């Protein structure tokens, strides 16, 4: 059976890419057509309107799509989680120099950021930070970063910066920093424009990052797909496979970026050794789409007032997140 799956070219699309490239999908009788989508909005719309059968999706966007908070009406469900962590906040070199934090500990960095952000707001030139989509862990991690330093999140401007623009917007001073997923923080740091200030995992440990979202219409194809992608995710999590995974992701069909940068950002890579806190995770222990993950996202949505009325939310969430589907195949993987 042929399936159209959408993804955004990021390191955490690895389980879908590996499922296709390494034959995990074929072993389940599935032929995957992987389509790189130009934006999260277009990926969401194409999944909702049936142009895609499934997708690599921001966990908050998947919930927002099905809850009618974002885009066209959707019948998506989440039978599996693809990844946790992997995001980081990168600040411009000049902002970092002005902040001069006492240490690189997340709390010191957050306090130093809060001081500068307050001063800039008072002078009428508030700082601008970039996120990837309103419905993303990135947005929530930026708010948590502000709050960790005792700063009112309204003290800075929050704008959306597509990852492929992040380096340019930082270099041109259009933003003072951004929160993005792997490998974009390392790309900005390697280009000399930014400095990775704090990992997302230091602000929200083991945050649900990307999920596998599929249309309910897929029905009988859902379980074979989950088996294939779950096996692929476990393969990606194995440090022994890092070199091959790096090579596959770096290829121009997928991320089309420098392999050395991708390698840093993958589990067990150099990025993990230089900063405290667990990084991007794909393994068996994170694949079940537990309701606790969804509830964390919902709590963040409420804290940012993306959801005002929580009536009926709990029941709705348990029809979207489907740990039962994952558990039905987990024993066979």
């Amino acid at each position: 059976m042929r399936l159209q799956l959408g993804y955004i070219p990021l390191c955490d699309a690895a389980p879908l890419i590996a499922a296709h490239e390494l034959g995990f999908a074929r072993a389940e009788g599935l032929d995957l057509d992987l389509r790189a989508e130009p934006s999260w909005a277009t990926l969401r719309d194409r999944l909702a309107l049936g142009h895609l059968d499934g997708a690599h999706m921001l966990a908050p966007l998947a919930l927002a799509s099905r809850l009618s908070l974002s885009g066209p009406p959707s019948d998506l469900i989440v039978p599996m989680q693809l990844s946790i962590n992997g995001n980081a906040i990168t600040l411009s070199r000049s902002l970092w120099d002005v902040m001069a934090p006492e240490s690189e500990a997340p709390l010191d960095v957050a306090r130093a950021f809060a001081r500068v952000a307050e001063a800039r707001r008072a002078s009428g030139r508030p700082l601008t930070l970039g996120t990837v989509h309103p419905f993303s862990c990135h947005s929530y991690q930026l708010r948590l970063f502000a709050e960790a330093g005792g700063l009112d999140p309204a003290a800075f401007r929050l704008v959306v910066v597509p990852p492929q623009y992040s380096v340019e917007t930082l270099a041109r001073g259009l933003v003072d920093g951004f929160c993005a997923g792997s490998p974009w923080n390392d790309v900005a740091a390697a280009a000399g424009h930014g400095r990775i200030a704090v990992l997302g995992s230091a602000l929200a440990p083991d945050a649900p990052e990307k999920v596998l979202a599929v249309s309910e219409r897929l029905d009988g194809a859902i379980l074979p797909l989950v088996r294939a992608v779950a096996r692929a995710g476990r393969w990606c999590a194995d440090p022994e496979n890092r070199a091959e995974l790096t090579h596959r992701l770096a290829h121009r069909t997928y991320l089309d970026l420098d392999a050395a940068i991708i390698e840093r950002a993958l589990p067990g890579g150099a990025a993990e050794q230089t900063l405290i806190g667990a990084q991007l995770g794909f393994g068996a222990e994170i694949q079940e789409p537990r309701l606790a993950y969804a509830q964390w996202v919902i709590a963040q949505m409420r804290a940012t007032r993306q959801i005002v009325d929580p009536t009926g939310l709990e029941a709705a969430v348990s029809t979207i997140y489907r740990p039962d589907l994952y558990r039905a195949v987990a024993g066979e993987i």
Partner: protein
Amino acid sequence: MTETSLTVAVIDPSRARAAILEEGLRAAGVGRVVVIPDTADLLERVTALKPDVVVIHLESPSRDILEQMSGVSRQVERPVAMFVDRSDTTMMQAAVDAGISAYVVDGLRAERIKSILDIAILRFNAFARLQRELSEARGELADRKLIERAKGILMSMKGLTEDEAYKQLRRKAMNEKRKIADIARAIVTTADLLG
């Protein structure tokens, strides 16, 4: 339709397609149509323009920049929502098939929005058709050149007339159930290798 008071922003990675839509909207009487380049400072430009409607191609990476205008953000004073009425899935399908998404300022009446979307769908579909025809025409031209070269090779190597060379190509193509251009390509490639 008289929409002289409206400002429509057009964002499209293809400048040619943007120009075609711009022309269509002007012809329909939209007062102000501004094509905004698909670059990193897009939000600043859109905010400064204060358009009533933003029509953006689905392939533009900048779509996510506009998503924040959909009421969630406190930064933009003029909240913007997804263009089409959520209940109108047919319209939404037609728009997405044509490669369009659009955002509209709250309060613009539905029928006014629909007429703009109709124009955008017509123009984008026409553009896609033109591109298809153009690439087919280019393909045909390339095929014809290939056949001319293959005929020339047969004529000089086998001492055939032009007519005989063409008949040989055609017979080979018929026997092998392939296109004449494919046979011609094989001859040209072989001649290049051996020549």
